[in-house]
């Protein structure tokens, strides 16, 4: 890798100050699981690495029905934390599907969101949960909903002088969840991934339904047309199949060197049906 200056910052203000000063010449280092491969292959040639690993951004807090996660929360923590399992288990399931065990040891929530790979699990889950992201810059903090944060392939609303500091999510204790994905090899980025969240009312009808997809476009997407088919309805198998078909017909993925757009759409339909089935079963247990 090319030579660079390295600073392990002690405060968020220090990090933001360095980013404001060095702009595109600086890169933030968190878990390094996306950045270091780019350094190894000299695809990234920053003059300054701003190491944020010593910042106190790895907290998990639950207040007033909201879950707040520091950007440095590791994937392994999402996978194993009893608090996550209790308050937002969909995050644990999604984190367990990321890369391999070594990526999950070091990789961070904030890093995955800021890198914004179109096939990554956590950006998709943020869309499903309508997460709020806190960005800190020289002028102070701002909060953005996930749908405004992801702008394109590997592109986000983060300014060059901003740091993603925290993520806020709703507690989803009574919501059934499931994450399904298909990849060519264990640990590869998914060809298509889907997150399903289903809440049932006391009569067993669908109160809340969310479907978010990764791998079907430059940014993770929700499919309101499929969600609307479920709301207020009995979650019978035919109804779930109809929602899966709506998702398949609505999504507009592209072909690449490995799979065609038609195959991606087919996969999206199959995975949606599986995810909805599991999410409904879990919602039934929670009700």
């Amino acid at each position, binding site marked *: 890798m090319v030579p660079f200056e390295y600073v392990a910052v002690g405060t968020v203000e220090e990090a933001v100050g360095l980013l404001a000063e060095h702009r595109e010449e600086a890169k933030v280092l968190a878990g390094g699981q996306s950045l270091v491969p780019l350094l*190894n292959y000299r695809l990234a040639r920053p003059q300054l*690495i701003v190491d944020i690993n010593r910042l106190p951004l790895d907290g998990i807090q639950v207040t007033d029905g909201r879950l707040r996660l520091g950007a440095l929360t590791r994937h392994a923590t999402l996978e194993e934390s009893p608090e996550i399992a209790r308050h937002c288990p969909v995050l644990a399931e999604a984190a367990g599907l990321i890369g*391999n065990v070594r990526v999950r040891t070091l990789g961070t929530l904030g890093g995955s969101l800021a890198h914004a790979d179109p096939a990554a699990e956590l950006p998709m889950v943020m869309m499903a949960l309508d997460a709020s992201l806190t960005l800190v810059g020289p002028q102070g903090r701002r909060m953005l909903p996930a749908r405004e944060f992801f702008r394109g392939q590997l592109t986000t609303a983060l300014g060059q002088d901003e740091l993603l500091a925290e993520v806020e999510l709703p507690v989803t204790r009574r919501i059934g969840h499931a994450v399904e994905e298909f990849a060519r090899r264990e640990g590869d980025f998914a060809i298509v991934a889907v997150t399903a969240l289903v809440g049932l009312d006391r009569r067993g009808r669908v109160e809340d339904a969310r479907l978010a997809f990764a791998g079907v476009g430059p940014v993770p997407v929700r499919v309101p047309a499929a969600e609307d088919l479920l709301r207020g309805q009995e979650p019978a198998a035919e109804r779930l199949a109809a929602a899966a078909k709506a998702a398949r017909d609505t999504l507009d993925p592209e072909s690449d060197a490995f799979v065609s757009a038609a195959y991606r759409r087919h996969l999206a339909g199959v995975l949606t049906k599986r995810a909805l089935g599991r999410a409904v079963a879990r919602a039934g247990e929670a009700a």
Partner: protein
Amino acid sequence: MRIALTLNGRTRELEVPPNQTLLQLLRDTLGLFDPKEGCGEGVCGACTILLDGRPVSSCLVLVPTVHGRAILTLRGLEAGGLHPLQEAFVRHGAVQCGFCTPGILLTAYAFLEGHPEADRKAIRRALGGNLCRCTGYAKILDAVEAYAREATRG
């Protein structure tokens, strides 16, 4: 820059350049050849080491970030002789060219420390991120599974 770390149980202080990976430090500077360089992007698992007891790709760790931390390479597992997990590999013929072996041994060791009762399916999933290009997976699983059974019995 100057860093201090614990390497295979021994405290070391080292002068390192910031633009070096932990794998380069271990192999090129310290002459520890048990971690191998395969892909250089964290996919193959040949460079696996344990950082504070958890598996990481040493090719994806920048040296300044390991200041104050404990690193275990395969030879740190050997206390005067082969570790029982290594002996199981020998017994089951689980080593072919050997390039993936150190990474697989450390990954399996760390996993079984946390999940001593793991069955073959769980072991298979835990080792999913370690590639063996000789494709000797069946014997590797046999060896890890046999070691797990012996370890829980003993």
